[in-house]
């Protein structure tokens, strides 16, 4: 991983071997989650701070569960009741938290690159839990893990990432992650919801979901921010659903083994029809379950004894 393996900021930090290693480690931690007492002492004595500048329920709970299963101590910096609301700068805030003695900071921030900046200011490991439109690497890792559980090797598999790619950190992380694992990645959406340039992206693009739907192994739907309609980048959410939503007819065209994925929270009736979200090949809740194991693996790798013990199953046992 990037910067001497101390931080996880972006999927660009991880090459295929790194991802493989993380997914393998995740299998061990998934097993821990199935035990009667799902807890190991791997991070006992380590302290992790949550620094969430943006509302998040599932990601924060997922990280928190992961940390507790690893026996780490955690502290929560609650932005709404804290110094940040009194005008304290991000730098002062993280330096204050670091001064208490912490090993890791898990940060979510509305601005792209905020976790990168934090690495310049403190010694702790920084884990990006979502920064602006930029990256959400643990989401991509849990999606890769989930997809691989169902489809096996992802080499040559075809994933469409559909909807609001432009404003989506999930799309950026997944496009890189799935491509790195050998999958064919197609971005689907109108120009208004695509990044202005795709130079250097390992992807194909289409504005027509029906053109690719029959060929997909994974149809990955992005959450449509409801305020995009106000920005006038789509005329109406109804029209968006008609053109780019996974309705019943399109879902029927997916192959029998094809997965329907969504990072949550879903807007039923917008990017995905309500009944489609409940189909057996929609693996949205599995994604959530796997999120805990992935985050255990990430926390363990960055804060535990280090990469060199990854293969040492005793650390997990």
């Amino acid at each position, binding site marked *: 991983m990037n910067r001497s393996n101390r931080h996880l900021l972006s999927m660009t930090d991880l090459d295929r071997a790194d991802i493989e290693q993380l997914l393998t480690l995740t299998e061990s931690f998934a097993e821990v989650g199935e035990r009667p007492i799902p807890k190991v002492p791997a991070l006992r004595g380590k302290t992790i701070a949550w620094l969430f500048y943006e509302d998040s329920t599932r990601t924060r709970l997922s990280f928190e569960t992961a940390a507790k299963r690893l026996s780490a101590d955690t502290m929560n910096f609650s932005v709404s009741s804290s110094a940040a609301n009194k005008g304290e*700068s*991000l*730098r002062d805030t993280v330096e204050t938290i670091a001064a208490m003695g912490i090993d890791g900071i898990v940060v979510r*921030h509305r*601005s*792209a*690159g*905020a976790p*990168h*900046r934090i690495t310049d*200011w403190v010694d702790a490991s920084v884990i990006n839990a979502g*920064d*602006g*439109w*930029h*990256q959400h690497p643990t989401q991509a890792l849990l999606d890769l893990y989930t997809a691989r559980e169902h489809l096996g090797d992802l080499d040559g598999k075809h994933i469409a990432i559909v909807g609001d790619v432009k404003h989506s*950190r999930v799309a*950026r992380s997944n496009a890189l992650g799935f491509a790195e694992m050998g999958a064919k990645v197609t971005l689907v959406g109108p120009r208004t919801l695509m*990044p*202005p*340039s*795709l*130079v*250097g*992206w390992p992807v194909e693009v289409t504005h027509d979901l029906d053109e690719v739907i029959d060929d997909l192994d994974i149809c990955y739907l992005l959450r449509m921010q409801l305020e995009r309609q106000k920005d006038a980048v789509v005329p109406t959410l109804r029209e968006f659903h008609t053109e780019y939503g996974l309705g019943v007819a399109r879902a029927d065209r997916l192959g029998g083994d094809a997965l329907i994925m969504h990072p949550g929270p879903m807007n039923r009736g917008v990017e995905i029809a309500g009944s489609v979200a409940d189909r057996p090949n929609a693996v949205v809740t599995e994604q959530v379950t796997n999120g805990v194991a992935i985050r255990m693996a990430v926390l363990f790798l960055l804060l535990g004894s280090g990469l060199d013990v990854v293969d040492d199953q005793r650390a997990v046992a």
Partner: protein
Amino acid sequence: MSSDTLAIRGGTVVDATGSRRADVIVGEDGRILAVEPGLDGDRSLDASGCIVAPGFVDLHTHLRQPGHEEAETIESAARGAALGGFTAVVAMPNTTPTMDSAAVVREVQELAVGVACEVFPSAAITVDRRGEALAPMAELARLGVRIFTDDGSGVQNERLMRTALEYAGSLSHLSDGQPLVLAQHCEVDSLAKGGVMHEGEWSSLLGMPGQPAEAEELMVMRDIALARLTGTRLHFQHLSTAGSVAMVRAAKQAGLPVSAEATPHHFTLDHSSCAGFDSAFKVHPPLRTVEDVAAVKAGLADGTIDAIATDHAPHTSQDKDRPFGEAPPGMIGLETAFTLANSELGLPIEQVIGLLSWRPAAIAGIHGRHGGPIVEGAAANLTVVDPDAEWSVSGAAMASRSTNTPFEGRKLRGRVRHTILDGEPVVIDNLAVR
């Protein structure tokens, strides 16, 4: 007051008339007494291996006073200017309060008395730079204001911009017959809004909202049309795109009364610099593509762009220590302008000095005191530069109260050695003495 003469010895004198080996003697009245080889004075400055040039003129400096004294003061900015070889700077009006009234312009003029360079206030085109109503341009012109700009944003309304051009065009009787200059920060708000860097491959990868080149180019295009319509002098600030440079080139060929400046950061840095999310690289207009950088350099080389201007924009570290998207745009540039031009443009030294000295002086209408030929009787506003001196950039070592340079740690070639303001040294051997 000194009652003696100052000799600048051993250098090569470069001005708009050419270059020659000569010593320069300055009298106690602050004027040049003689320019020829083999002279000496009561005091002397060594200029061996150096160029003796007319002082540099910065058309675009944010001195931050009044209102933002923690980031910079007129005194600290002037010291930085002198260290950068500038003997004159044009103060941008986006202070707090805005330089849109006689009171604020007078305050700036008073604060600038006795500082290390001469400060020429510009003033806002519109009241509080809001783009709604004209500032009292005649009253401000009577105080000596020659350049009007809403810098920080462009005048969005076409009708108001036309009115401003027509009104300014009728006030040359207040400015010694020279036309007043309207200077535009070209940026169409509705296209640029929310954008924190150049819109392109890097903004797409980094997930940051971008400003397309067209946000600048549409206003350049519009203002060229308005210059044609009104016949009034118009100056384009900090051109940053290939399209802008091409349009200004064509407008000049068509004989329109337009001029343009470019900043050192726009001819040296491109948008890939933003990849590390370091807010030192956040600036408006944003750092553009490699092709745009090449076009700006070509524009400087062929004269389409008349002047190098710094857009020196100090910000405190607490303001810059934010995520890229939330930090204020701007970078300091007074002390690095010459060395970057010298190192990066690949132009003859005479041309580099022209871009920093007599050409901006003519645009600012101050060529009687700054940037003129180094001859007997001329005001001794001079700078002595060593084009081969190597140094590495350190924001903390600069005179500015702020350290937001994007060139931190860069090793560059060429350095200002001495600066002389009205006959008195203000910088001697790279050190400010005022």
